[in-house]
């Protein structure tokens, strides 16, 4: 086993420099990532599908393009992984559900098209909680993923496969989707950067919907700069998504080096206390102190509605999901169970095809929307959502950005929360408010606990405040100087 930095440890920026210096090729980068996957997949199970053939061809094309001076930008020639809820033309896409076993979409999601146009090499499709419903990737219909920092623990979820792949070096970056924290929480638990952009800035066209009003695609990466470059490649107005933002988009990298001097940063008082691990709280407090030391004015901010955000989320998201997942009925694609009538066939297909968590949420959502309950449940949840938006708006009149832990805990043991849905739901308590408000938020690794498990720090900003968010996140990354890498006992799978 070699020592020192290896190709698979490079950031996107680092790999790009080596590519442009002629030192390595895209094919070399792909081989390094595939080799790393080959040695770690048996332990991690980050991927559902590795597309060696398609990725090989894309790498060769990227190298050929660079050789003639056609440089498509920062992602050119970079092997990237996609969460398996993003449609890839001709390449199996299952959202980790048995109901979509063998499904090959006839079209590429907009983000996939944009990654390809940016020269990225799509290495494969990563594991997730079925239809992105979960916080540990244990709800996958194809087996759990595990955390590269400790393979007895979960990588977080639902974008756990993408997080594990990036943390392990099996991809230089990845895309995930975040409905209630599904990018930021696994990034936090896996010691990498992950962000959810402002709702409407990244097209959802081709993203298999969980909760349409909350879902956003975003990057998982090894550095804040990588995250900004990746987001820059995939965001922007898309006429195929009616909720896509059509105004001006901010420059993502302009303020990365500006520091936080003179900024007002709010610490959310509700996201601390009971249920928060001591190591997480102390690491977050230390970082807040460091930000003050770097010239930021720190303000304690109370957002009382955060206490009820989780309850509202678990009505809105399942309600939307109950309709979004209605289309999986065995008639046009995916799994089909036999049945004596059309109705029996549909019912049996769904009973067989969906796992228990998905079934639970469909039932919950169907109930919340039912006549006679609508106003008490779904209607009330929408009013809470509006109140959370008001709370945020009040806070952003006082501060430029808000900070908190990303997750109340470090990575938990596999199996610990699978039988306790409420404990699992609490994993997302810090991340859900930004989904309900539609605001951007990022998780940056800031340290490890006494078991060498990574801790993430969340930076939140107002709508289209990505520039501010990245400015603070880049400073957090510099102050944390987090350089630890997971050590995985490699075994050839």
């Amino acid at each position, binding site marked *: 086993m070699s020592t020192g930095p290896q190709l698979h440890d490079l950031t996107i920026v680092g790999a790009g420099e080596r590519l442009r210096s002629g030192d390595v090729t895209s094919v070399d980068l792909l081989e390094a990532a595939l080799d790393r996957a080959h040695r770690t997949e048996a332990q991690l199970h980050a991927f559902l599908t590795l597309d060696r053939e398609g990725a090989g061809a894309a790498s060769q094309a990227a190298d050929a393009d660079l050789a003639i001076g056609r440089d498509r930008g920062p992602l050119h020639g970079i092997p990237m992984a996609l969460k398996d809820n*993003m449609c890839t033309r001709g390449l199996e896409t299952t959202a980790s559900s048995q109901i979509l076993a063998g499904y090959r979409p006839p079209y590429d999601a907009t983000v996939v098209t944009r990654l390809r146009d940016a020269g990225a090499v799509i290495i494969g499709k990563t594991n997730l909680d079925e239809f992105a419903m979960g916080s540990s990737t244990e709800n996958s219909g194809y087996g759990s993923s595990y955390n590269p920092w400790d393979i007895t623990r979960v990588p977080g979820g639902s974008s756990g496969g993408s997080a594990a792949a990036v943390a392990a070096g099996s991809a230089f970056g990845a895309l995930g989707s975040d409905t209630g924290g599904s990018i930021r929480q696994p990034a936090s638990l896996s010691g990498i950067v992950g962000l959810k952009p402002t709702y409407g800035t990244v097209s959802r066209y*081709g993203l298999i919907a969980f909760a349409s009003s909350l879902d956003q695609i975003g990057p998982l990466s090894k550095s804040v700069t990588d995250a900004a470059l990746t987001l820059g490649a995939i965001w922007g107005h898309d006429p195929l*998504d009616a*909720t896509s933002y059509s105004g001006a988009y901010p420059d993502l990298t302009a303020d990365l080096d500006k520091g936080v001097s003179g900024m007002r940063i709010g610490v959310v008082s509700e996201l601390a206390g009971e249920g928060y691990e001591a190591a997480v709280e102390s690491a977050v407090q230390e970082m807040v102190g460091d930000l003050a030391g770097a010239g930021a004015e720190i303000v304690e901010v109370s957002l009382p509605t955060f206490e009820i955000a989780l309850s509202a989320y678990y009505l809105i998201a399942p309600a*939307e999901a109950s*309709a979004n997942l209605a*289309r999986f009925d065995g008639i046009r694609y995916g799994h089909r169970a036999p049945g004596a009538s*059309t109705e029996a066939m549909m019912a049996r297909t769904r009973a067989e095809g969906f796992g228990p968590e998905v079934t639970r949420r469909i039932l919950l959502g169907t109930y919340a929307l039912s*006549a006679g309950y*609508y106003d008490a449940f779904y209607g009330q949840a929408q009013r809470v959502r509006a109140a959370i938006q008001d709370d945020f708006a009040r806070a952003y009149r006082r501060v430029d950005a808000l900070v908190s832990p990303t997750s109340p805990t470090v990575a938990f043991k596999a199996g610990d929360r699978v039988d306790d849905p409420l404990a699992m739901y609490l994993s997302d308590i810090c991340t859900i408010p930004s989904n309900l408000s539609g605001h951007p938020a990022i998780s940056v690794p800031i340290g490890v606990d006494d078991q060498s498990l990574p801790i993430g720090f969340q930076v939140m900003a107002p709508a289209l405040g990505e520039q501010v968010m990245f400015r603070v996140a880049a400073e957090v990354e510099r102050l944390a100087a987090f350089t630890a890498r997971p050590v995985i006992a490699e075994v050839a799978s």
Partner: protein
Amino acid sequence: MSWEPVIGIEVHVELATRSKMFCGCAVSFGEEPNTNVCPVCLGLPGALPVPNKQAIDWIVAIGLALGCEVSERSVFHRKNYFYADLPKNYQISQYDIPVCRDGHLELTVDDMTRVIGIERAHMEEDTGKSTHVGLGGRIHAAEATLLDFNRSGVPLVEIVSKPDIRSAAESRAYAQELRRLVAELGVSDARLEEGSIRFDANVSVRPGGEDEYGVKVEIKNMNSFRSLERAVDFEIRRQIDALEAGGEVVQETRHWDEEAGVTHPMRTKEGSSDYRYFTEPDLVPMVVDAEWIAAIRAALPELPAERRARYVSSGLDDELAGVLSAVAAPLRQVYEDAVAAGAPARQTANWVTGELTAWLRRSETDPEEAPIDGRRLAELVLMVEDGTVSSSAARDVLEGVLLGEGDPSDVAANRDLIQMSDAAELEAAVDAILAANPEAVESFAAGETKVVGFLVGQVMRATSGKADPGLVNRMLNEKLGG
């Protein structure tokens, strides 16, 4: 006891936009099954709807034509139900904030003008089409169901009337008037046989003078105006019979059986009534601002009710105005041009709705290709007015014009139809007929004055219709000593 029927009608109109409501697939009829589809209208995972601006323009046009209040901001909802031909298992529709509300439609039924309230008109997407093949074509006996998604996602406007309709005949008139309206707006093919217009009726009865509504029954599967009228008529009778026999009416959906001429209760689907409506999160609210609405209003063609009112004010009676308003647009244009050229309105309208329409029907000529223009029709009408030709001869002149024999004056001359205006010549003809029919003259003397009619006919025949029948009549009466 007298019973009053209370009827409300829901009409679904498929818009003839170029593309579907939420995707770029073409709106077309009669293609190979499942060839006119894409990820969006097939409900594939990850696909998203994008609204069609043309469809929104057109529902606003329909709303304005119905005198509706148009919402500047309206919202799409998901209507959730499982059905094999509904690819997402929810339909994108509208719920509490439709595009159009509170309008009305004016009809003429049995010479009476009726104003039927419009509750709402909302935008939605059509479903695919199920064809049950196998034994008898009934769902429960089917061996297989074939699904065609070509129609899936076609823009559909649902127009819901208020319960203002009071008879089967009014139901039919309402549906016909609505069809005429959307056809004239040019927003739909409006073809019943292709399903581009479909209707359901809600029927109840109550004792005369009662304010409370009776129990409502929804009837479906009427595919012509006639079947709508028959179905409503049957249902009214069925309900009255049930109530008079001491029974009750059950709230249900019934299926019209065209062949048997009866309605049957439909198999009810458990729980199908709770559609769990909620705001469609894939779409943003639809905002149609005042300026946009004004532009659509300015582009509206003249509507049937406006046109009828204009015809009445130009001197036509209600009935003639109604009939003229309903004839094909090219024929109305001939009328407008003829009147503009100086022909009197009522007579011109009679020619258009009578002889001209009849000739076109007999000769199976499309009104678009009617071989006459306003100038020639005006000339013909004026020739009758000034006595140049008799009204019976004028029919031959019209035929000649339609057969391409030239202007009315040429046809009248060439066919020798110009009215005899020389009194001496006419008198000679009258005398000849009197001489040839002595028994008629005797009958008249014996008091049978109606033989004059026979004699007039003889004179007209002898003069090949060129005589003025009024003048002949007067002359005969004088000569017979009346």
